[in-house]
């Protein structure tokens, strides 16, 4: 009976433990993976010409543009361009899911041959020695000559870890709006933050939800809202944050964050915005349930089909700068197609990455986007929305890199979103935000690298 009890106890405990089970063998696998790039290169077996090389490609599968690039360009032209390659396509999800999936693959030594890298997690993969430095490969095969500004590909250590068409350097925060809703309700494009709030009030009084954004996980505050509000108060503070010359107790930050708190409390966003995902937030806008959509210019191509949609930039509060003078830009040399330095077919993986980025460039070039990777595409008639996007970009006098991508380590960046998400509930003050986030900022290791 006693033994039976002990066995019963053991199974119960084991069941409890199995609920907790979480991979903890990171260090061991890691040491096995960290092979130098040169070794991988020299040991790459040459596949027999008749047999296909199998490669695994992981892509962002929640990003509308990336889905189109994969389905309409990469898959479509693959057989003609890379006849000896057989691809196993792996949809990676998006956002935090994508990041965590990659980190887990990195830790378990199961990274795909090629994947779409993002700055938010790339440093972790690079520091583990798993992300290939392209420099030698793309110099040897002259692919680098296709880039108008090859220096834009280089990370701070001078190496090239990702191949990007370069469209994301031109991605900036934008407010998309329905022209007819504005006209019917007597609302003009706001030039100052006060005008913006007045416009939102007018729309709200007419029963229209002013603006949808993605609030889940604090996405909008994390990617652009906090920075945009800081810039709209004083661009110098954003530049100082990028160089760690100030912190989040700066009074300008408080004033900036106060604006987000005000917007949430005044009902600028839909109810429940703090839990609103990207797709539904865009859907609210395209189905005209909201008058505006706060996002990035990467939606321009998708929204161009509707001539009723226009765009403008986030209005300023600083009399020294006009609204169109300052913007944040998204690009990072760590965004783009990356290759596993431990791939069994590194050279073919590089070819695949080069092919993917070329297809990405084709897609954006056909939309009329500006690119770093040059193509032979002759741009046809651009949509009015795209023309407006390019006009706004070219007129901007000061372009500031994204703080989230260029000044925060993984923990700080994540908490930047989580704590920022609180602001959207309307039950969290700017003062609390400054207090909570500044303590995280103080532990930021980005500038200690």
């Amino acid at each position, binding site marked *: 009976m006693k033994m039976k009890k002990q066995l019963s106890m053991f199974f119960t405990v084991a069941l409890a433990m*199995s609920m907790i089970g*979480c991979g*903890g063998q*990171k260090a061991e696998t890691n040491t096995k993976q960290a092979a130098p790039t040169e070794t991988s290169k020299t040991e790459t077996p040459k596949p027999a010409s008749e047999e296909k090389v199998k490669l695994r490609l992981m892509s962002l599968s929640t990003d509308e543009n990336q889905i189109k690039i994969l389905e309409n360009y990469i898959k479509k032209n693959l057989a003609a361009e890379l006849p000896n390659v057989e691809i196993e396509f792996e949809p990676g999800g998006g956002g935090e899911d994508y990041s965590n999936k990659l980190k*887990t693959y990195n830790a378990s030594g199961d990274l795909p041959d090629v994947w779409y890298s993002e700055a938010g997690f790339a440093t972790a993969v690079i520091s583990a020695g798993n992300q290939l430095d392209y420099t030698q490969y793309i110099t040897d095969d002259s692919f680098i000559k296709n880039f108008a500004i090859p220096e834009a590909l280089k990370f701070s250590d001078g190496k090239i870890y990702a191949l990007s068409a370069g469209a994301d350097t031109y991605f900036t925060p934008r407010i998309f709006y329905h022209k007819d809703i504005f006209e019917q309700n007597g609302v003009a494009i706001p030039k100052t933050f006060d005008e913006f709030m007045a416009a939102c009030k007018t729309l709200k009084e007419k029963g229209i939800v002013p603006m949808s954004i993605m609030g889940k996980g604090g996405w909008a505050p994390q990617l652009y809202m906090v920075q945009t509000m800081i810039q709209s108060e004083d661009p110098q503070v954003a530049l100082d944050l990028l160089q760690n010359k100030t912190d989040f107790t700066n009074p300008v930050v408080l004033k900036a964050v106060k604006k987000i708190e005000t917007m949430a409390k005044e009902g600028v966003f839909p109810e429940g915005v703090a839990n609103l995902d990207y797709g539904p937030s865009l859907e609210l806008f395209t189905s005209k349930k909201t008058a505006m959509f706060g996002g990035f210019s990467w939606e321009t191509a998708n929204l161009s089909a509707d001539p009723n949609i226009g765009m403008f930039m986030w209005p300023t509060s600083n009399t020294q700068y006009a609204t169109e003078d300052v913007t944040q830009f998204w690009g990072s040399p760590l965004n783009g197609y990356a290759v596993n330095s431990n791939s069994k077919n590194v050279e073919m993986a590089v070819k695949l990455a080069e092919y993917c980025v070329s297809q990405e460039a084709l897609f954006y070039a056909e939309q009329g986007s500006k690119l770093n990777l040059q193509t032979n595409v002759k741009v046809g008639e651009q949509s009015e929305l795209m023309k407006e996007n390019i006009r706004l970009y070219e007129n901007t006098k000061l372009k500031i890199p994204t703080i989230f991508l260029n000044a925060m380590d993984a923990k700080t960046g*994540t908490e930047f979103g989580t704590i920022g998400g*609180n602001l959207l509930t309307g039950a969290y003050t700017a003062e609390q935000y400054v207090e909570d986030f500044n303590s995280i900022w103080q532990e930021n290791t980005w500038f200690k690298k």
Partner: protein
Amino acid sequence: MEKHYRNKLSIFIFAFPGLLLFTIFTVYPILPQILISFQKHDGFNSSGWVGFDNYIKVLRSASFWRANGNTLIIVLISLLVALPLSLLLALAIDVQTPKTRNFFKFSSVFPAVLSVTVISQMWVAMYEPQWGLINSFLRSIGLEGWAHQWLTDKSTVVICITIAFLWQYIGLNALLFYTGIKSIPKQYYEAAMIDGANFFKASFFITIPLLTDVIKYVLILSVLGSMSLFAHVRVMTSGGPGDSSRTVIYQMYYTAFSTSEFGVGSAIAVLFIIECLFVTVLINKFTAKERIEF
């Protein structure tokens, strides 16, 4: 023959394969995690040993205690509300006609076999503040004031996730109880009825006492299942707004994978193991009765 099955060697031989698998796949992987919990570790590289620093950091973290509070709420609701409801549902299934019983049995199992993502997304849609079923219903019956931002209000978000979670598994628990009820000999009920017992008395004095083993099994499953709630939180709120709907398991995942503090995440895991062991001992202590043979 039965004697053979009762000696220690036989028990060991039969239990050994299971024990071996549990040891390899469950116990062993925890050991490196314990080691990592004493290191500054980003998931890929260790920056060295830090003693109990990770544990101190965890124990001083408001988010960790909030996550523990949320987990406790979920476990309590599971025990005090969901478990009795499951039992009631099982008793209700038992008194149905065979045709309606099959319908109820199917309805009980159906949510449990659906994907957690499907269930969670369905509940997210139901809780949606503007056009969601719950608020729409409340508005339609004139209770406009009760309409609420269910998943973005810190005071309601945990309860809402718990409801979605329990809704999925309450039927499965009921079915387990029902299976136990079916194994109770009918003569006991017949004798009780002759003595004048009604449905409630029979349930209280016959069914429940004879279901002790099943209750214990469902209790352990419910408590551990509730404590390890993760997927519903991940899909429905990602732990938000802020950290207000994180469970301990979600806090561990967030710390390890999102903020890349694997050392701290492992410390949370170790503390959670201790919590689970404590709860397991408690359950065994309070349910360690001699089995009623019938």
